[in-house]
């Protein structure tokens, strides 16, 4: 709790939240340029290993892409970072994860604060069965981020705008979110996650049910968000990974096979498995 509390109280809108982030960057940048570092992560579901000895650094203010065949443990790894795996009864996580140099498994760490700082967009869109407005406003409300209704309105509109959804829902903000299409729901979930201005955003296949145009918008969004946040994106599209990320990590059967600058991974992979995967021979 002490260690992970916000350096400044979170106030008002996304614009001020961004100021906070940039200040924080100046403080932290000299010490360590990676926002998250995971060391020797082992995850088991029951007896079954899902991640084996994964160590990776997530750079600050960059987009890190996680690629790998289905079932290789990408989602599992993301869930380690905001401790959502705590909720899965059979799941056992070993190893150390540091967020801004602080161990997220330390006893004094409050998971509520951790999850506020590390936001998540799930693989399957999971909007609340409430109005579109209430979906986005939920996070800011529970954290008391807005002092007035107009401030809350601003956060909601801003988040929807940046998720590229505002124009489609402007005149049905108070209709149920369940009436949105799959792709719209996914963008709503993105809007919901960025409404609380986290430092890190974990995105599990954010474009899996989007058409190319909507995908392009989300990619633009991710690129824009990079200015203020650090982002991890799981994706099955090599092109997307190449377009949007600065760093890429390739997982295979629970192992982190290779990681490095995106350009290098895609042009000169060191491991034969990486090479096989990006050229479409395994997966």
């Amino acid at each position: 709790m002490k260690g992970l509390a916000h350096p400044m109280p979170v106030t008002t809108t996304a614009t001020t939240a961004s100021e906070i982030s940039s200040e924080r960057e100046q403080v932290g940048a000299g010490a360590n340029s990676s926002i998250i570092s995971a060391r020797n992560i082992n995850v088991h579901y029951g007896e079954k290993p899902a991640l084996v000895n994964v160590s990776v650094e997530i750079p600050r203010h960059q987009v890190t892409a996680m690629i790998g065949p289905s079932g290789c443990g990408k989602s599992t790894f993301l869930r380690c970072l905001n401790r959502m795996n705590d909720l899965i009864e059979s799941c056992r996580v070993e190893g150390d994860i540091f967020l801004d140099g602080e161990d997220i498994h330390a006893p004094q760490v409050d998971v509520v604060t951790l999850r506020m700082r590390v936001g998540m967009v799930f693989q399957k869109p999971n909007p609340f069965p409430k109005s579109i407005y209430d979906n986005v406003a939920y996070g800011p409300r529970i954290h008391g981020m807005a002092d007035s209704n107009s401030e809350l309105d601003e956060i909601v509109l801003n988040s929807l705008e940046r998720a590229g959804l505002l124009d489609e829902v402007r005149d049905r903000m108070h209709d149920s979110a369940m009436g949105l299409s799959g792709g719209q729901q996914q963008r709503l979930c993105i809007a919901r996650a960025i409404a609380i201005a986290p430092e890190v955003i974990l995105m599990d296949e954010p474009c899996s049910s989007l058409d190319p145009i909507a995908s392009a918008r989300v990619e633009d969004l991710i690129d824009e968000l990079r200015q203020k946040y650090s982002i991890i994106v799981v994706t099955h599209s090599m092109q997307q990974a190449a377009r949007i990320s600065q760093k890429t990590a390739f997982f295979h059967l629970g192992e982190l096979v290779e990681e490095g600058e995106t350009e290098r991974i895609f042009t000169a992979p060191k491991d034969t498995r990486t090479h096989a995967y990006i050229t479409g021979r395994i997966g």
Partner: protein
Amino acid sequence: MNNAVLSQRMQTQLRRRHAAEKRFRWYGAAALCFALAFLFVLLATIIFNGAGVFIHKRMLFEVAVSEHHGDRYGAMIKDSWKAQFPEVTNRRQRRELYGLISRDAEFLLREHLAGVSVPDNGIVVLSVPFSGDAGEFLETDPEKRDAFSERLSPEQRGWLERIEASGQVETVFNKDFFLNADSREPEIAGILGALIGSMLTMCVTFLFSFPIGVMAAIYLEEFAAKGRLFRFIEVNINNLAAVPSIVFGLLGLAVFIGLFGVPRSTPLVGGLVLGLMTLPTMIIATRAALQAVPSSLRYAALALGATPTQALLHQGLPAAMPGIFTGAIIGMAQALGETAPLLMIGMVAFVADIPDGFTSASTALPVQVFLWADSPERGFVEKTSAAILVLLAFLAVMNSAAIYLRRKFEIKW
């Protein structure tokens, strides 16, 4: 077309599969018809037997209010009644004559006079019920009235027919049945006492079992460590749901009345006992409803930094609400129809007053049915069926409320 593609064997098999399909549907339809037929016969019988209660015969009766009787209203009634039959002279005849109108008449007169001032001629017109046998006699078809030869003397029958011919008999909706409490006299016995008793009891049952049941279920589902103790408690709750209700009556007698001194025969103790009985159903239904909520919903809230309690209260519980209400209403409906445990805690006493609170003596609808079914007077036979109809109507109202609440909380996925 099939012949070309399918082999001989496949064709035979396909025919058999279609036949099996058809047969299976018929079994289902037959089972449904069977069940419906029984329900229909049951309902029809009850309605046929009980419908007579809802309209009844009353007599429009001119009562002479005389000074010299003072407040002896019974005497005024008797005198005015007798005055219509000059031939009645001896005591036996007088007694038979008075036996034709309800004993309630003098109370009706008193109430009536309390509200209005007596006109100058001293005559007030009063609508009074007949006594049980007389009322039934008048309601019977004239050709079939011979059946009353044992219950009414030839003279009594003559008088009743004369009254009927004179146009003093009116057929009206029996509002007394809905406004009176129980009585020894079938013609004035009403259901209101038992109805209010049941309502009060159900209130206590709901207030007792709903919050406790829901909280217990939430704890078990969301917070309890799922260890050996958990399994033990789980199994026992399931067992409790199957314990015969009379056992809860005994428990209530020992604990609530014996230990805590809750007054017996009251809606309070009845509600507590039925609440105990309903508790396992509530817990099981609530847990099932909570389990049915997709966990992605709670994960979404938790990932936004909601505490587990917030995730539950804001997302999980509202989504589970329709299911919880369904379970609650099943439990309450069960409790409403329960008689045995109420017998154990004295709610079977004869109560001639309408209960005016949670601690006044009262019966409940199913107990009233039991009491009337057990009464020797013929007038109570149709009352029994009418009481069952009221019980069923109560149930229907409760179920409608549940459906309304469920609709209100329903989520479109």
